[in-house]
């Protein structure tokens, strides 16, 4: 029963999360902390903070945390499946419909202009992330290395992630960090 209510609660959170990220906090607060009392506000913020700096989608990470806390590993799985369930249904519907209308000139025009908007949104996301991400000279150098190499060479992002994780440890241990 607990697994089912975890699934349903997080499906609700999934439907109401529009765009993810910080938009999710008030919804989690209401559903998880106030309605279900599965975690305190402090715990929720802890989970969210750790969910941000572990691999994967933040919403999924936070759901796994709370589900695990409530009902162990099975709870983690149930909550996570719940949070992605609405996405799968809604996107399949929309993608199915869009495929049928993709050749209509008006739809093509709309998406050509929407692509412009997406570029602006990506740019804004980068500007917003910049402050928290690049804090010193060494950070700037890492940014430039990854930016230039990934732009001009066909290297998997996995390679950069592994390299920078290692670089972070080396730069911290050698005291280069913070200068």
């Amino acid at each position, binding site marked *: 029963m607990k697994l089912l209510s975890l699934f349903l609660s997080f499906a609700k959170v999934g439907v109401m999360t529009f765009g993810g990220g910080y938009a999710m906090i008030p919804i989690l607060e209401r559903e998880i902390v106030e309605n279900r009392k599965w975690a305190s506000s402090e715990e929720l913020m802890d989970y969210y903070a750790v969910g941000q700096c572990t691999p994967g989608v933040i919403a999924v990470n936070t759901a796994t945390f709370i589900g695990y806390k409530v009902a162990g590993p099975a709870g983690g799985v149930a909550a996570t499946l719940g949070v992605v369930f609405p*996405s799968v249904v809604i996107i399949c519907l929309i993608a199915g419909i869009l495929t049928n209308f993709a050749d209509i000139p008006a739809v093509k025009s709309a998406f050509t202009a929407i692509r412009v908007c997406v570029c602006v949104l990506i740019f804004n996301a980068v500007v917003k992330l910049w402050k928290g991400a690049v804090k010193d000279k060494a950070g700037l150098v890492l940014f430039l290395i990854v930016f230039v190499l990934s732009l001009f060479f066909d290297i998997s992002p996995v390679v950069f992630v592994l390299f920078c994780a290692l670089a972070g440890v080396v730069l911290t241990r050698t005291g280069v960090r913070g200068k």
Partner: protein
Amino acid sequence: MILLRLFWEFFKTGLFAVGGGMATLPFLYDMSARTGWFTQARLADMIAVSESTPGPIGVNMATYVGFETAGIPGAVVATLGLICPSIIIIILIARVLKQFRESKTVDAVFYGLRPCSIALIAAAGLLVARVTFLNQDAPAAGFNPAELLRWKELLLAAVLLVLTRFVEPLKKLHPVVFIALSAAVGILFAF
């Protein structure tokens, strides 16, 4: 077989994309280049739909790519692939949450990962911008730089940039508002 490959590709994405929804973008870009499952222009469309529909962006993008590649089974498999590493990693971390939060090594790793994540997103964004603002099919003969650029698109970008960054009450609006506005402009001015 394609389902297995989808699962594996998204498992890798879930394992290495750090820093939220947009962080999956460079992985999807890389996937598009290597597998040819979808074009880079389609990728921009998928981002738009993922931003304008309920659900976390990263999950929506995985579902969309999966659906484009192998229908509904593809959508399910791609999404499961994306969330598998999260489930495993978070359950492991939940047992040692306190140590994890206070670990100096974890902190050092993320000190290196943050600039990496933002650089990857910026580079992938620039590549999406290239398909959007440059005429790919411009005639190669008679180099005319003016024909290389797509002026209508650039103008719209400039307007959107001002609206989303500098106009105080508009800045806080949800991206879906600007996506809808762009769609209307596109239809009205026959982009």
